[in-house]
């Protein structure tokens, strides 16, 4: 991991100076946005397949039970006397195992034939989460697995948890008693033994070195032991973790794109062609677990499901192609992560201030709420994604509410037109002509209001399909042709042989 990080920084240092890099990474906003975007990319790519397979809520279950894996691995590690740290590989293994365990438990319950899929999921993850909570409160004390960490994570603090890398003037310093910078101190050898003060005349002394030991370059520089500042880069650990996970996810999707596509849309065909859909599903679930545990520090175990579900759902309303979804949903998720930081600081999309909204609420309802808005970053990211989803839901050019409403109104109008044209066509030239087609009473035959009838007739007249003759509506030549064309179209569409009813 460290080597990887170092290689990455070396690459970056070709383009920017180390001061600029440090300044960039030390900004909480930059690091939080970057980590958020990376989580969003992983979540969106994997979530697309979950959504299309109808497994979206499996990510919910997995993100909950990942907690159990983390707790179990943590207990094992403390049992073995190892230092517990949420980026330790053992925790990741535990979390992945827990994720797979959830899927196995759900599948077992479901395959018993006694419990439905959704119920099995609803049974499995509260149980595993409950066990995790019991274990935490029963056996694990003073861990940072507290409520806040589980719920919202600490993406705002991601910049502070860094590995330092040194590139120039990197002598790690060893100060020995002979070193010019060594500070000699006198230490009383027998004071404690005799319980006397160092001023007592019986006290014996020896010379010791107060600051001897090995210094890393960073420590040596801050202790003022170096003449020249070492070139140090402080790289946040979360960025590395998420970069690795992003590379894994993108690689997985790129390598198995064809297989994923096939098993997602036609698992039976995939199986008969010799692929193994189950293996691929488990691989997918392992990746979901890994991302969930990687994101655990940053966004907690509940909000992470938004990264898996909301961007793919929004992309699903924009495109019909799998490749389109895989491109759009990371963009939507990334935008959410980027603008989410602004929302946490009180600006929706950098334009609408939340404070004014609160002020308006205060004015309307006579409340005294504080107007300064400063909120959880991860929750704000999720809210921003939701706002984006709602925007897509309303405005999508393909499936949006607006377009659908317009489309519905159009087809209703077309239907009205056809009904009126067909009515006129049926009665024109028959004995009932005068009764059925009289313009003043035409609306009664459709049980419409006269206003609606007028609107439809006006439209048909403007199209040149209908004209008025002796108080009756009749078809023009164009209208007649239109009716026949429509009839033909219907017959073809429904595969009915064309028989002219007027011929015996």
């Amino acid at each position, binding site marked *: 991991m460290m080597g990887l990080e170092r290689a990455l920084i070396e690459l970056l240092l070709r383009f920017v100076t180390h001061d600029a890099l440090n300044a960039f990474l030390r900004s909480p906003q930059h690091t939080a946005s970057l980590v958020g975007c990376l989580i969003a990319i992983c979540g969106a790519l994997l979530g697309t397949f979950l*959504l299309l397979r*109808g*497994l*979206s*809520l499996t*990510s*919910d279950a997995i993100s909950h039970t990942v907690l159990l894996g983390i707790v179990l691995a943590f207990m094992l590690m403390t049992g073995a006397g190892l230092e517990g740290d949420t980026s330790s590989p053992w925790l990741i293994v535990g979390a992945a195992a827990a994720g797979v365990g959830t899927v196995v438990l759900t599948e077992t*319950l479901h395959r*018993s034939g*006694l*419990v*439905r899929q*959704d*119920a099995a*999921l*609803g*049974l499995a993850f*509260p*149980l595993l*989460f*409950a*066990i995790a*909570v*019991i274990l935490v*409160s*029963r056996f694990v004390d003073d861990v940072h697995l507290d*409520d806040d960490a589980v*719920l919202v994570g600490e993406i705002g603090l991601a910049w502070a948890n860094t590995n330092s890398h040194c590139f120039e003037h990197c002598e790690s310093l060893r100060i020995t008693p002979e070193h010019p910078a060594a500070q000699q101190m006198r230490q009383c050898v027998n004071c404690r033994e005799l319980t006397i003060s160092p001023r007592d005349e019986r006290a014996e002394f020896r010379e010791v070195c107060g600051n001897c030991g090995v210094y890393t370059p960073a420590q040596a520089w801050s202790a003022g032991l170096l003449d020249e500042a070492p070139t140090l880069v402080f790289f946040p650990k979360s960025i590395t973790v998420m970069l690795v996970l992003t590379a894994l996810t993108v690689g997985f999707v790129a390598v198995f794109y064809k297989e994923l596509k096939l098993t997602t849309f036609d698992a039976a065909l995939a199986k008969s062609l010799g692929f193994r859909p189950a293996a691929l599903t488990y691989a997918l679930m392992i990746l979901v677990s890994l991302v969930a545990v990687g994101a655990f520090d940053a966004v907690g175990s*509940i*909000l992470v*499901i*938004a990264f*898996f*579900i*909301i961007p*793919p*759902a929004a992309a*699903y*309303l924009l495109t019909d192609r799998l490749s389109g979804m895989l491109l759009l949903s990371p963009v939507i998720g990334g935008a959410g992560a980027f603008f989410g930081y602004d929302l*946490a600081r009180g600006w929706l999309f950098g334009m609408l201030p939340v404070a004014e909204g609160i002020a308006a609420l205060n004015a309307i*309802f006579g*409340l005294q*709420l*504080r107007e*300064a*808005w*400063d*909120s*959880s970053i*991860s*929750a*704000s*990211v*999720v*809210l921003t*994604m*939701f706002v984006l*989803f709602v925007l897509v839901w309303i405005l999508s050019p393909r*499936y949006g*509410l607006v377009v659908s409403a317009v489309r519905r109104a159009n087809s209703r109008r077309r239907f009205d037109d056809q009904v009126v044209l067909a009515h006129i066509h049926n009665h024109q030239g028959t004995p009932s002509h005068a009764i059925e087609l009289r313009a003043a009473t035409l609306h009664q035959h459709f049980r419409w209001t006269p206003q609606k009838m007028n609107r439809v007739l006006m439209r048909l007249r403007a199209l040149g399909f209908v004209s008025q003759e002796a108080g009756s509506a009749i078809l023009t030549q164009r209208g007649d042709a239109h009716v026949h064309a429509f009839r033909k179209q219907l017959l073809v569409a429904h595969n009915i042989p064309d028989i002219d009813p007027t011929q015996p």
Partner: protein
Amino acid sequence: MAERRVWAMIAALLALGVLLVPLSQALFGLRLTYTVRVVALGGSLLGALSGAVGCFAVLRRESLLGDALSHAALPGVAVGFLLAGRQLGALLVGAGIASWLGLRLVAAILRTTRIKQDAALGIVLASFFAAGIALLTYIQSLPEASQAGLDSFIFGQAAAIIASDIALLGAVGLAVTLVLALLWKEFKLITFDAEFASAGGLRGGLIDALLSTLIVVTIVLGLQLAGVILMVGMLIAPAIAARQWTHSLEQMVVLAAALGAFAGGSGAVISALDSDIPTGPMIIVVAFALVALSITLAPGRGVLWRQLRQRENRRHFRSRRLETGA
């Protein structure tokens, strides 16, 4: 036969539940303090209520709706706190409204888009929960108001239950039972054949909304004890366990209520034995143990039963083959 068996089971469960307290007093040295009594009573009342209501959620294939709705209640709790301060009534009303809005949003997404139920539930769950968290952080930043206790809605805090909460639970439980009894026929019809129900002239939408409201009310009441994350387990585990024992809705609802009450009460008692065991999660573990028992042992349907029958069949088949072969 099957009828009598289930009723006997319900009676045995209730008797066992009642006996549990003196038993654990004698065996494990349980100290029956006021808190333990209140929590155990609250747990069993809530278990009974959510068990009964959960049957409909499970049978309508909406098991995970409970999960989404309980998460969706959180912003309501926060808004209730902002508007009215720390009054349980305001918090619960807020939770109910938010949860109900979440329900409508799920329905709207399902009606107007091609997104399927699982994703729709996920969207509502995550975004409402995020709104709740955002509001809670905002409340935390307010100088005068400490958000003390609002966290307990997330993980549940059984120890916070007081006698007046029990009265509330009891009253709502009675009301829910009354509604169930009055509209039994309608609920049954809409659960098993919603299309037939609306064809038969039933106001499907209204009954559907009423049934969902019952679920929302149950969830809101359960939040304090079980918390938003575990509430779904409270709702569906007793129902799934009860489903294994019977094919009749009447028996299933009563049995689920009894199982829920048993899980709630005994979970509370077990957690009282050790101060480090939280109540809500313990109730869930007991409820799941009941599910596991039911899935294995239930006559006719259970895993063990099926295996026995399979062996019987095999033996029968073998003997038949010997007969014809001879």
